[in-house]
């Protein structure tokens, strides 16, 4: 019983990371029907920039007073700004032209190409080895006792869950409550009509790419303390998050969270009960099933159109 809870908890925390990255895919897909296939690299770059920033902040005279925890918190805004700018660059160089000429596939190749360039850049700056990211929270696992089951959690895993939820809620809140956020939804619904309202939809799409990379960079610094940080850390994560976006549906915010949790939990359970060699298989089978049975995703919906 205890081990089951342990596995589910780890699955949730991994799943939330998938969910956040998939959420980023969704943001750009909504406004432009395109995705950044370099999302994994955006995550890795975010983590590496975060690593440099946290080491710098901690290395200053203040570091000894504020400790790693506060250094980590101070580093986050820098990483968010970096992610935002990086996403803008991807949109400007890789996507805008393809959208303007209504290219069906140009953006696929150009975002992959930019991803590879970013990865090479990162390898040359930070090297090819996995680096240790200082953990802002104690690394020793705490014991959680639910009465009927007892299991151990790493504080950082809890932080991942809350951090992931927080950033997704923040974006949702922005979209639903602010005029600019509503303009994003309007652009997603009908780009031409949004233009008639005076909304600069080119800028909205650029902004959605910026937000998408921002969430990926944030996911990077969330996951970095419990894994090794390096240029290639995002490759597998980005791919799995893409599976999550397909499973959950590219049009549903709730879908990516549930999709992420499903994939995360099946992975940890399979890894333990069957074989760690097969841990990726059930999720991918699920992906194939969803594509066969409900191609719009578990929570995806076809857009309502009334004539």
């Amino acid at each position, binding site marked *: 019983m205890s081990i089951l809870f342990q596995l589910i908890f780890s699955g949730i925390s991994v799943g939330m990371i998938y969910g956040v990255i998939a959420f980023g895919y969704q943001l750009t897909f909504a406004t432009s029907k395109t995705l950044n296939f370099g999302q994994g690299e955006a995550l890795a770059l975010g983590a590496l920039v975060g690593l440099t920033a946290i080491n710098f902040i901690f290395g200053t005279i203040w570091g000894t007073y504020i400790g790693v925890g506060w250094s980590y918190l101070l580093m986050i805004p820098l990483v968010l700004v970096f992610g935002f700018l990086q996403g803008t660059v991807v949109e400007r160089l890789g996507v805008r032209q393809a959208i303007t000429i209504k290219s069906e596939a140009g953006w696929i190749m150009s975002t992959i190409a930019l991803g590879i360039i970013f990865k090479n850049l990162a390898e040359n700056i930070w090297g090819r080895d996995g680096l240790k990211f200082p953990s802002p929270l104690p690394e020793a696992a705490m014991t959680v006792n639910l009465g009927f089951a007892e299991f151990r959690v790493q504080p950082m895993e809890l932080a991942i869950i809350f951090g992931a939820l927080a950033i997704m809620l923040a974006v949702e809140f922005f979209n639903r409550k602010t005029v600019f956020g*509503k303009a994003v*939804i309007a652009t997603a619904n009908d780009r031409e*009509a949004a233009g*008639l309202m005076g909304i600069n939809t080119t800028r909205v799409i650029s902004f959605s790419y910026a937000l998408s990379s921002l969430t990926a960079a944030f996911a990077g610094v969330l996951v970095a303390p419990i894994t090794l940080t390096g240029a290639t850390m995002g490759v597998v994560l980005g791919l799995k998050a893409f599976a999550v976006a397909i499973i959950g549906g590219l049009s549903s915010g709730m879908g990516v969270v549930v999709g992420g949790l499903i994939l995360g939990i099946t992975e940890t359970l399979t890894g333990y009960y069957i074989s760690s060699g097969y841990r990726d298989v059930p999720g991918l089978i699920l992906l194939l099933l969803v594509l066969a049975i409900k191609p719009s995703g578990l929570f995806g919906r076809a857009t309502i159109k009334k004539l």
Partner: protein
Amino acid sequence: MLELDNISASYGKVAVLQGISLTVPEHQLVTLIGSNGAGKTTTLRAISGMLRPQSGQILLAGEDISTLPSHLIARRGLAHSPEGRRIFPNLSVKDNLIMGAFLRLTGKRSRGDVAGDIERVFTLFPRLKERHKQLAGTLSGGEQQMLAMGRALMLNPRVLLLDEPSMGLAPKLVEEVFATIHRLKAEKITMLLVEQFAAAALEVADYGYVLENGKIALSGTAAKLRKDSAVQAAYLGGGS
């Protein structure tokens, strides 16, 4: 206020507009009538920047807008209630109206009283008020049409383009839509109206243009066009 000078436009290789010239004077209601495929919707799309004309000039208050993208044309005070309504299905009714006032809320046009103008739209269309929290995608076709008109009004436009506001509506709703157009005319809003119900359009308009195969075939005061035998035969179901 709005002037088209020899506008030509095409979709791909198909020429749709072949040298359209027309004028919408301030405070007047001008209607554009013609059969399906004559180019009425295309004319409006060219004006609001949804389609870039190949040649010709479009002057809004004396300034050429023919090469501007839609959002910059809106910024100069042109609102367009497009064919097919094109409301935002995933936003509430009220948020659709707020999007109509986007430029006023973001400082690009003078703000005025946005909340008051939303109330004014609700007075014009009480049904929208009842449903203001509902997602616009759940509205009936008639309600969506009202929303599209209300949303365009929220810009406080200098010129309002209305594309087939009666399309697909039950007769009673068509009457309601025209009653609204009468009311907007009384408020001296400058309008260009495209309509399939030529009789009703000529009833409310000051001036009319008849479009045939991408060219202006005839124009004149609405009173004159109503009496024109060719117009009666072709568009007013007359001849008898």
